[in-house]
């Protein structure tokens, strides 16, 4: 009898452990779904008010507004504005521009189809931000042919300008 009750106890503990694992780890992961900008823009109604994970490159300026900040994150298709606490942007080192590749980040937060706080903008209010890949400075790649053609045109233009001014001198 005691053997049976001990087994039952073990099964109960095992089931409880499984439930704890599901509650602690699996459920939050399934609540946050990884989505692209196209998904969000094209299916805004479906994702409205839902918790999502959005990742992409930070582009342009990090715009600090009081205790919060705006960042714009481009996933290759479109850029979406993310509103987050000022402390979260401290990790950001590079933002995308002509000369830099911005940090690739992953943001978790609530997606708003029409944000009541921000004048109806389509945005994400992030609760956490993680830098997945640090950005870097981008070296300009210039084709040698482009340089040759530009120099050739420069010489032609300078010659034409000299001819123009010499003729202008003769004319006057």
């Amino acid at each position, binding site marked *: 009898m005691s053997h049976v009750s001990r087994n039952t106890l073990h099964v109960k503990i095992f089931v409880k452990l499984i439930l704890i694992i599901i509650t602690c780890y699996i459920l939050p992961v399934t609540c946050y779904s990884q989505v692209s900008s196209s998904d969000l*823009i*094209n299916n*805004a*109604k479906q994702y409205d008010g839902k918790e999502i994970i959005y990742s992409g490159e930070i*582009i*342009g*300026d*990090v*715009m*600090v*507004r009081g205790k919060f*900040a*705006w960042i*714009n994150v*481009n996933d290759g298709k*479109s*850029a979406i*504005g993310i*509103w987050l606490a000022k402390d979260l942007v401290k990790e950001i080192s590079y933002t*995308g*521009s*002509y*000369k830099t590749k911005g940090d690739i980040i992953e943001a978790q937060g609530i997606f708003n*189809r*029409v944000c*009541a706080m*921000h*004048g*109806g*903008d*389509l*945005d994400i209010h992030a609760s956490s931000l993680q830098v997945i890949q640090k950005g870097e400075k981008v070296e*300009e*790649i*210039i084709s040698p042919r*482009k*340089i040759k*053609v*530009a120099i*050739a*045109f*420069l010489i*032609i*233009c300078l010659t*034409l300008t000299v001819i123009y001014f010499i003729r202008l001198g003769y004319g006057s």
Partner: protein
Amino acid sequence: MVLKPHLDDFKIIGYYLGKITIGIGLFMLIPLVVALGFKEISPTFDFLIGIGVSFLLGFILTKICFTEKDLNWMQGMIVVSLSWLVATIIGAIPLYLSGHFKSYLDACFDAMSGFATTGLTLVQDLDHLSYAHNLWRHLIMFIGGQGIVIVALSLFVKGFSGAFRMYVGEARDERVLPNVIHTSRFIWLVSIVFLVLGTLALGITGILNGMKPHNAFFHGACIFMTAFDTGGFAPQSQNILYYHSMYIEIITVVIMILGAINFKLHYHLWTGNFKELLRNIEMRTFFVTIIITFIITAIGLYRLGIYQDALILFRKGFYQLISGHTGTGFQTIYAKQFINDWNQLSLTGVIFAMALGGAVCSTTGAIKMLRIGIIMKALKEDIRRIMLPEKAIIVQRFHHIKNTFLEDKQVRAALLITLCYLVLYSGGALVGMFFGYPFVNSLFESTSAAANVGLSCGITDISMPALLKVTYIIQMWVGRLEFMSIFTLLGFIVAAVKGK
């Protein structure tokens, strides 16, 4: 009998085309300086090549076609229509060399969209475009808004009667001052003063919004140029949504409205005649059409229920509407949201607004307020004629700078241009539908292109068919020049082929 054009016609056209080509090259010096300033090496070479091609082509044309003869009406109109094509092809060179365009056709699309102050764009990865190329995109809108030919000529021409013919050819049939070159310089003065003020306002707001100072002022200058010239390009891919700022939206609304006002009215405001603002037929019509089209849009959005808050409904609805009505094309929603989130009634309100446009002798495209005002006056006159006794003498007047009696020829001209625009809007929509796009989407995008607005519902994309890209380029060109110079060019080509 159609007369074959004389060799002199070709020479005169070629000579002035050459001068304008050199003028475009001179303007490329500005982004070249910016490229050097920001140490952007590759863009420096791109602009050197662009300048080189412009100067070389301009030099060859002015030498081969050298003439001291003045332009007649036909030649003036042809110079204008061809100049816009030449400017597009040359202006696209540095854009294409940037590597941000899939093909040269796409670069030409953006160049024509810029010069015609439309704002539809096919640029890829805009968020990584150099300062120099980005400035060039906005600068071509500023040049196009003033009128390419007049801008180029006012730089190095003292004044001649042919200039007026080209001024008219660029869809500016009103002179602010008696001399057309003085008029063009006044337009420049107004634009530069507002450029300084607008850049300061937008730049300071940008800094307060958390942008870096150099970025804030660069964006400020770019946004001003495209707002005042009712263009619609912006330095970032999200357009005005990038800033997440109500203040930027308010400032741009003011600048867009200033850009949609007749330069003649600007002159009266500058000289202290504020009463003109209230009496002018264009301003009255503009006010009425904004209210009507906004009511249509707002009812549509209200019925849809997407914007629960009245303030949000106003902010989103009014911004897209005023952007469409002034022909600017700034957006604070994503292009796809027009189709996914707005209903057909709200889209119809915006389509009407885009089709109507701003004032004549402004930087806007489309049918324009003076013509709408005249047509409405004529309609009122006809209704009164039916209702009053047959012997009653009915006189209709309108106020546009001065009091004018409404004449049949004015009504005829207004109706003809309106008809031409309606055909142009429908033609583009038909081509869109031919490629499988739905009716409302096709009409929206076509009206946006032909009325030089730039709002997009998502059709304009690098993957759209090449023929549709060409269609929109032609619509932007024809819509900006308001038909006459294009018809003259077509007539000239027919005469060259069939004439005796």
